């Protein structure tokens, strides 16, 4: 099919510290979670994804994205 969709994903995982209690000095206590949603949306625009929804817990923010 000429409309075939590429299912297999690219997967990037970046760790800035081994755990949340050991962030590099200078990082806020909330670490990467300090980055506002609108900034993630700007990054994801470059990736060509849109945020569909977000679920947050005490430890993480989970974004479901388009594509």
């Amino acid at each position, binding site marked *: *099919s000429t409309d*075939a*969709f*590429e*299912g*297999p*994903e*690219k*997967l*990037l*995982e*970046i*760790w*800035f*510290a*081994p*755990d*949340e*209690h*050991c*962030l*590099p*000095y*200078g*990082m*806020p*206590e*909330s*670490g*990467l*979670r*300090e*980055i*506002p949603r609108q*900034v*993630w949306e*700007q*990054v*994801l625009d*470059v*990736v*060509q*994804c849109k*945020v*569909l*929804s*977000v*679920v947050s*817990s*005490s*430890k*993480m*923010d*989970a*974004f*479901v*994205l*388009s*594509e």
Partner: protein
Amino acid sequence: SSLFVFANKLILKTCGTTTLLVGLGPLLDAVSEYCGFPKDKQPWRVFYSRRSFMFPDRQKHPHKSWKDEVACLDNKFANGSSYVIGDVQKDHWYLYLAGPSDDCTFPRRTVPGSTLGASGSVSNGTSITNGHNLSADAPFDDETLEILMTDLNPVHANQFCSDRIPGVESNNMSSVGAPADDEDPGHDQGNIVTKLTGIDQIYPTLKQTVDSFCFTPCGYSCNGVVNQGNYFTIHVTPEQGFSYASFETNVPAAKYGMSNADVIEKVVNIFRPGRFSTTFMRNRNEDDESDPDSAFSFRCLPSKLNGYQRTERILYELGDYSLVFITFEANR
């Protein structure tokens, strides 16, 4: 596609013709601007992986080839290593790893409760350890299980087509369903599919919130937040001829009385793929060093699965991580 953001790490998984690595620069810029992470310092760990693409010619640069992807990553990170795992004539898997560079030495904040332990004097609950490398032997736990499935059974794949989904009113919403951001019916349909397919029963005893979305006319994505700090994510492209589904999690199954074999069997039974590969990657600990075969290689993944035959099994030791890659084919 999915993005998971923790205080210390992020995971971005995107499909289709997305340009994930083009976003690497803006992503690192954002971390620098909002989190104060120096632009000239290397992150503690970088992992990039993907299965072989089905339609590589339709990808956009740098995702048309593994060589270009590695060049892009090498442009951002030092000490990178790249691997091609599996039979290159069949389903194979690519992995790029980068650890701390030699100059990755910077003061770190350590708070009570850290698995690394505090060093230096504690003031207001926080200590600062000057000049310590975030070393590779730090006692932390990390494991990722990924299942990549192709040639889905059509009956099972059709569960992820929006015109096959029962009306919202006729179903009780999943008890684990997440509230939607907007009025798009894809959220409600996603919740229904999550329940009907048994996705909400992969980790039945754990506290979880599953945020699901069904695309029109077909396709499905969900993120599961498990016990606050772990995740699983599923993405499905059900179209016949190029059907595909993926499952990924960092839930430590053994910690919750499950095995990876249990999880794999549940996931495979949802999709009944004709073929699938599984990767399990975990940092090694002292138990593995004393008895590597029983602790990691053999116990973690199944050698048999009802209705399938295992076609490949590859073990890797990659720095302080171990990796198992296995492939199965259905006995159709």
